[in-house]
């Protein structure tokens, strides 16, 4: 049963991701990305990582994607960008990267398959995670906060002069 669910969800995730990277319209892509992330959330749940599944949905699919939405909206140029994307995404342009990616994937596949058999699915509940988080990983949490601080300050700095300078003028 679980395995069946896993296959279905995986298929959704892969499909959504493929769609996402091929969309001409950024918003469409974003929606597929959210779908992919949600599928990932389900997978997490299936794998017994309930806490992570929740975070995936709330933070990843929720908060972070909203940022994208904002930016896409701010820069929205409508049909123009879609046309542009159509030109950019000539079929031939896919060949090289895909070949590379397929080779890399093949390598990973060999590695993973040769790794031997093991089962997953032990449930690690939020409590366990919390204990680890505030026990051995305390410093990591603190550091993560510093990471976010850096990101915050950075985003602030990058965001602010935009308002001051006149738009549309190349320096």
């Amino acid at each position, binding site marked *: 049963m*679980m*395995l069946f669910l*896993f296959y279905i969800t*995986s298929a959704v*995730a*892969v499909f959504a*991701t493929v769609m*996402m*990277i091929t969309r001409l319209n*950024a918003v469409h*892509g974003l929606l597929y*990305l959210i779908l992919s*992330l949600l599928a*990932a959330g389900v*997978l*997490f749940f*299936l*794998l*017994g*990582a309930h806490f*992570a599944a929740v*975070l*995936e949905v709330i933070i*990843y699919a929720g908060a972070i994607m909203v940022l*994208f939405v904002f*930016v896409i909206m701010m*820069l929205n140029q409508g049909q123009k960008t879609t046309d542009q*994307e159509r030109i*950019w*995404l000539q079929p031939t342009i896919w060949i090289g*990267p*895909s070949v590379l*990616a397929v080779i*890399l*994937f093949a390598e*990973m*596949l060999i590695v*993973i*398959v040769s790794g031997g*058999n*093991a*089962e*997953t*699915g*032990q449930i*690690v509940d939020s409590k366990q*995670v919390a204990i*680890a988080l505030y026990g051995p990983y305390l410093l*990591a949490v603190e550091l*993560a906060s510093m*990471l976010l601080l*850096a*990101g915050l300050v*950075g985003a602030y*700095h*990058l965001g602010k002069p*935009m308002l001051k300078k006149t*738009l*549309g003028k*190349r320096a």
Partner: protein
Amino acid sequence: MNGIPLELGLVLSAVLFVLGLIGVMVRRNLIMILMSLEVMLNATGLAFIVAGSRWGQADGQIMFLLILTLAAAEVGVGLGLALQIFHRFQTLDADSVNEMQG
């Protein structure tokens, strides 16, 4: 034990990872590139979750958490940069942001 083999989970994350990679390599729109990056990071998160699930340890989830943090910060900064670039270069085309070369 719910019967999902480790390999399958890892292969799935590898697939997602590679798809994200294709996105980074193919897309010219900076926003799309950033989104593809997210896919890659998410794929690695999945890998950690799968591994953690195998060992029944919280470490996998914690690594996922940290990745999440990174993703958030990176998106924040990345989008900020994308905005700046759009205003300087009047485009989000990654290929035309290539004044420096050689």
